[in-house]
């Protein structure tokens, strides 16, 4: 692993039951940089993210964070790791029974001994960074989907995390707000030296913020490199993804018919 890598993924395999969804994924996530993970729907991006944040257990030896094997962490060590990270989920994932400000206060109340007054100011600052400070006393249900997402980002920043994971920051946002979030992500990297991992479909945003790009395809690592390397790739699937070309691959028609009506050859006998 290069010295500058904070997270090293060493041949990660992942399964849901018997179905394998990630196949021997290998790449490093550099410290203090922005890594963007891209790929078509169902390619395994979210599963990979779930492994990286410890929501899905990784087999020992396959996911190393700061020289420590995440796959061997007990609950105490995993909680320690979770204190170092911030996660913005695609939906915002706010607690509906709490105000927006109370949502942002949750990690600070749980993990620090800061006073209520200090916590309230931190919540206001974080909400202001995402353009929502005037909504601190609103309930999540009073916000639009895009606003909930931004409030979720504010909550993920509450602890000034060392590593920030952001799932689809731009989807569902107008272009101006989305560009504002991209700039905030760049500013966070610059100010805190945060290591930031962004999962996105949005190509314009990805090329604007990425130091490194990872392209997944059907659970496999298709390409990894600097944005200019990905842009210059001649791999058919990478080109198809970047040019937003529809998938021409057709499902086996015979298998489809068999699935619908059963095996006709057997019935003919």
């Amino acid at each position, binding site marked *: 692993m290069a010295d500058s890598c904070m997270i090293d993924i060493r041949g990660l395999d992942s399964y849901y039951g018997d179905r394998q969804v990630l196949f021997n994924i290998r790449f490093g996530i550099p410290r203090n940089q922005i890594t963007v993970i891209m790929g078509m729907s169902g390619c395994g991006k979210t599963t990979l993210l779930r492994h990286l944040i410890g929501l899905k257990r990784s087999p020992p030896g396959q996911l190393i964070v700061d020289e420590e094997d995440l796959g061997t962490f007990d609950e105490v060590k995993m909680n320690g790791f979770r204190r170092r990270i911030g996660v913005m989920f695609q939906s915002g994932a706010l607690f509906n029974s709490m105000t927006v400000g109370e949502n942002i206060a949750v990690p600070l109340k749980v993990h*620090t001994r*800061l006073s209520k007054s*200090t916590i309230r100011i*931190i919540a206001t*600052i974080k909400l202001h*960074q995402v353009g929502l400070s005037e909504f601190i006393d609103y309930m999540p249900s009073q916000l639009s989907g895009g606003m909930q997402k931004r409030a979720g980002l504010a909550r993920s920043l509450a*602890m*000034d995390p060392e590593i920030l994971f952001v799932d689809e920051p731009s989807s569902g946002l107008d272009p101006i707000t989305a560009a504002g979030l991209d700039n905030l992500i760049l500013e*966070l990297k610059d*100010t805190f030296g945060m290591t930031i991992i962004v999962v996105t479909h949005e190509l314009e945003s990805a090329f604007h913020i990425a130091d490194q790009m990872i392209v997944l395809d059907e659970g496999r690592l298709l390409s990894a490199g600097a944005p200019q390397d990905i842009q210059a790739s001649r791999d058919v699937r990478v080109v198809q993804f970047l040019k937003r070309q529809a998938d021409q691959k057709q499902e086996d028609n015979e298998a489809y018919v068999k699935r619908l009506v059963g095996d006709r050859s057997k019935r003919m006998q």
Partner: protein
Amino acid sequence: MPSQTESTYSDRILVHLEGRIDRETVPKIRNELLSSARKSGGKKMELDLSRVSGLDTAGIAMMVEVLRVVSRRNGDLRLSGLNDNAIKMIRLSRLEGVFDMRNHAAIGS
């Protein structure tokens, strides 16, 4: 360990902060700092950050609390000795227009 030393002059209170000012240390120094702010009584209060080795949002939030206390007593708060990281933190918090900031060392002695 963070530390703070206070000097009182006829026109101002000067507080030197030292060490990391973050979510772990703010609970330990906040009360004393707010107490200094309450004593300022309309004077200028200056926080010298030249020996601060790290600052996070909790540290910034504590300074906002100090500003509130000083402002309520018709005083002013100045931050001095700011390094690049502190200035970036204040900018990221969108507070550059709120604090009176100096990047040189504290005035007077």
